[in-house]
């Protein structure tokens, strides 16, 4: 019996677990995948938007601002990467001048730092900006994070401080008597309160509690392209085109690690698990990106991917408390930026009314291990030589760092998990050199055969999970 069950461990579930782990309530998190932060939360732009574009009066506008305000402190407490790189909202034609002024005015009303800048200054700030860009708004507070790093750090902190996480535990039904009974593939869980933050499945899970729920989601796919880190100096800020009814548009940014990332497209899809890239989508990214920056050579691209955003047809987040069953659904953009705001909102508006939340004493610190500098590495090698055995040459990651990723409180159980936590396979060889070594280390540390190490849920090295007649 728990006080609160959180269903889903994307950025919303992870942030709620983080916030709630500091109160005297018992919390468990149910996640259907082998790794947390695995669906919507892992495939997006990784941006903490300044918060000027959501419409007035929406939860999106309100919670994006709170999220943006909370992130720097959370990042500091957990030692995760958070970089205020600033952004340029650029206009390409005089037709967009009006819209530019609208956003400047809205930003000012919301007390968001903003500065109007003209061609010369734009080009000084961004030498590779497209020639067609005429004017821009500069938002110095726009920040970049690595989404899964943020989520992993939050969940690790939460688990260290008493939250129970159950992975590969899919919810298949919910009953309400005095308490909630949550039926899963791994047995039954009970709680006084349930928080549904299941992303792509938000409405389905909401219907377990209320079959008459009328919420509707619309799934939008967004395709991205990612470049090699060697082009790090190509871009300094996040570059946004003028937003349209489809969303923020195809933007250009540099990730924390230094990869350039272009995207996303935005179109409605039927299958919510369609994470596929398409010729048309990738071409659209190319053509749209060329309107805001000078194109980068094609052979610099190392990866393409697609994310799916579950948006409500009301165009706003849905956050509601129905008899101790809290729905947090329709969290599309700016969901990542708003996550700390959403968590705070859920706690302040609902949970503080249902529970006497008191801050816990003796909280255990959790610090994310950032990428090592040469000096730090040299010091660590003195205690453990495996910090000096580099497994991933592209990203300079050692055997010991991979072992650390596996032995976190919420440790990696898959190739994908190791990749998210510590990056082998994210570089220019895309795992070509190091993947088998990563699998070997996972197998050794988890004491299983290499063939039983999943890449992702139930997908293994060999199609039959390791049937091999040559061995």
């Amino acid at each position, binding site marked *: 019996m728990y006080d609160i069950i959180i269903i889903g461990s994307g950025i919303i579930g992870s942030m709620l677990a983080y916030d709630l782990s500091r109160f005297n309530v018992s919390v468990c998190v149910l996640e259907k995948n082998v790794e947390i932060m695995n669906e919507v939360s892992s495939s997006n732009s990784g941006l903490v938007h300044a918060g000027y574009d959501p419409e007035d009066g929406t939860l999106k506008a309100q919670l994006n601002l709170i999220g943006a305000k909370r992130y720097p402190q959370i990042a500091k407490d957990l030692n995760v990467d958070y970089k205020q790189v600033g952004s340029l909202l650029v206009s390409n034609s005089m037709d967009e001048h009006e819209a530019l002024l609208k956003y400047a005015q809205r930003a000012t009303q919301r007390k968001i730092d903003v500065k109007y800048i003209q061609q010369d200054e734009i080009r000084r700030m961004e030498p590779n900006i497209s020639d067609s860009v005429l004017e821009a708004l500069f938002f110095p507070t726009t920040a970049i994070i690595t989404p899964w790093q943020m989520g992993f750090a939050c969940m690790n902190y939460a688990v260290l401080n008493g939250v129970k996480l159950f992975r590969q535990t899919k919810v298949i039904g919910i009953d309400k008597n005095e308490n909630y009974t949550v039926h899963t593939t791994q047995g039954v869980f009970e709680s006084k309160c349930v928080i549904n933050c299941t992303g792509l499945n938000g409405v389905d899970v909401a219907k377990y509690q209320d079959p008459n729920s009328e919420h509707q989601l619309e799934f939008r796919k967004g395709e991205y392209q990612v470049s090699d880190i060697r082009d790090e100096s190509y871009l300094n800020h996040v570059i946004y085109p003028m937003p349209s009814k489809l969303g923020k548009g195809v933007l250009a940014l540099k990730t924390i690690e230094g990869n350039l990332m272009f995207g996303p497209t935005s179109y409605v899809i039927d299958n919510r698990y369609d*994470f596929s890239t398409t010729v048309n989508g990738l071409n659209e990214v190319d053509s749209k990106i060329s309107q805001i920056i000078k194109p980068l050579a094609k052979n610099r691209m190392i990866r*393409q991917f697609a994310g799916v955003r579950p948006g409500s047809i009301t165009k706003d987040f849905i956050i509601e408390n129905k008899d101790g069953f809290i729905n947090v659904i329709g969290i599309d953009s700016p969901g990542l930026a708003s996550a700390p705001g959403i968590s705070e909102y859920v706690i302040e508006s609902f949970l503080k009314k249902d529970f006497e939340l008191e801050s816990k004493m003796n909280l255990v610190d959790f610090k994310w291990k950032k990428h090592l500098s040469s000096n730090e590495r040299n010091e660590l090698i003195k205690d453990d030589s495996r910090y000096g055995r580099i497994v991933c040459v592209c990203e300079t990651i050692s055997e010991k760092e991979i072992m650390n990723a596996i032995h976190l409180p919420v440790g990696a159980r898959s190739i994908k998990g190791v990749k998210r936590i510590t990056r082998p396979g994210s570089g220019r060889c895309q795992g070509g050199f190091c993947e088998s070594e990563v699998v070997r280390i996972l197998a050794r540390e988890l004491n299983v055969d290499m063939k039983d190490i999943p890449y992702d849920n139930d997908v293994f090295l060999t199609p039959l999970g390791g049937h091999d007649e040559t061995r």
Partner: protein
Amino acid sequence: MRHVKCVVIGGGSAGLAAAIQLKKYNIDCLLLEKEDVLGGILNQCIHNGFGLTRFKEELTGPSYAERLVSEFHDLGIEFELDSTVIKLNSDKSIEYINPKGVHKIQAESIVLALGARERTRGNIMIPGDRSVGVWTAGSAQKYLNIDGYCVGKRVFILGSGDIGLIMARRMTIAKAKVVGVAEIMPYSNGLTRNLVQCLYDYDIPLYLSTTITRINGNGRVQSIELSRVDENLKPISGTEFNIEVDTVLLSVGLIPDNIITENAGIEMDPRTKGPKINQYYETSIPGIFACGNGLHIHDVVDFVSEEGDMVAKSVERYLNQLGKSDLSIPVNSDSNFIYVLPQTIDKSQAVKLKFRVKRPLKNVKLVIRTKDEIIMTLPKTQLLPAELEMITLPLPLIDKIQDEVRLEIIA
């Protein structure tokens, strides 16, 4: 800071040969290898066909490596394993990491024998699902020959490069069904002997002018969509067909692995994707030399090692300050060539030119000219992109060279 006469970066077929030869010139060198064994990629190439030129017999990859490694050890050459170079500086200092620490050493000369990496799905942008079961041919080779896991049951191979062909045979022997090989070009990109011994002998179909236009399968690969391509290599709409497979191996080209070279500010050639070199295989930074697959992609390992031998000689010249002329005459080519090496020559001695053509050519003449004068004409019954060509320009001809050397193909 430790000072070394010569540092060889990379302990594969090029680096080992260079180090061995350096020792024979009595030059102290230190070889840095990122893996925990010497030999490089040869260790996973358990098929035969290596060494016919160098050792006059047919060896497997590991045996070829073993020959070099035992000679290397017999000579007592210093080396460090598990040593990854993270930074090469233009002053020839080198930073590397190994289990003993993070080190910085000063080299008087450097041999880059960096090897190559394989093009990935992301590099060639194959659209489709985020499926598991798509590997480069070399990764699958490593899983099978080093770790003992055959990663597929029904396999399709994209690209008819040599590793792809070798893996078609290897996976078949490991009881996988290799359903086919697709090549986007209208001709194969592998050596003829590999086509015969790895595909034809096993009845594996080769689809020319065909490419994968979509990979399907949430979770494991379930099928692929293939399309015919037109003369501009664009997929032709309406020609799509699907094949059910669980694994896709990519053999779509190798790229010289030169990140430390680029970061050092060494001038690169976008055609070879390796550094630009003069006829001593010296890069734009004097005293830094390059050889092997890190310089340009070879098809025969014997020539990789030969480049290592040659570079050692250049290092010896450099360290003994044997003069070279200040001339730097560009070597150019017409549009029939992918590239010609070296990029510049200095007229001081005979030079071996190495080149690849862009498409198969039959019964043509290879012409080497300088300004308006043709200095050499060679009839060629066949030139293939898959085969690295070499010709030596002897000294008497070198003397005739004026501002430029230019390779052309005429009918």
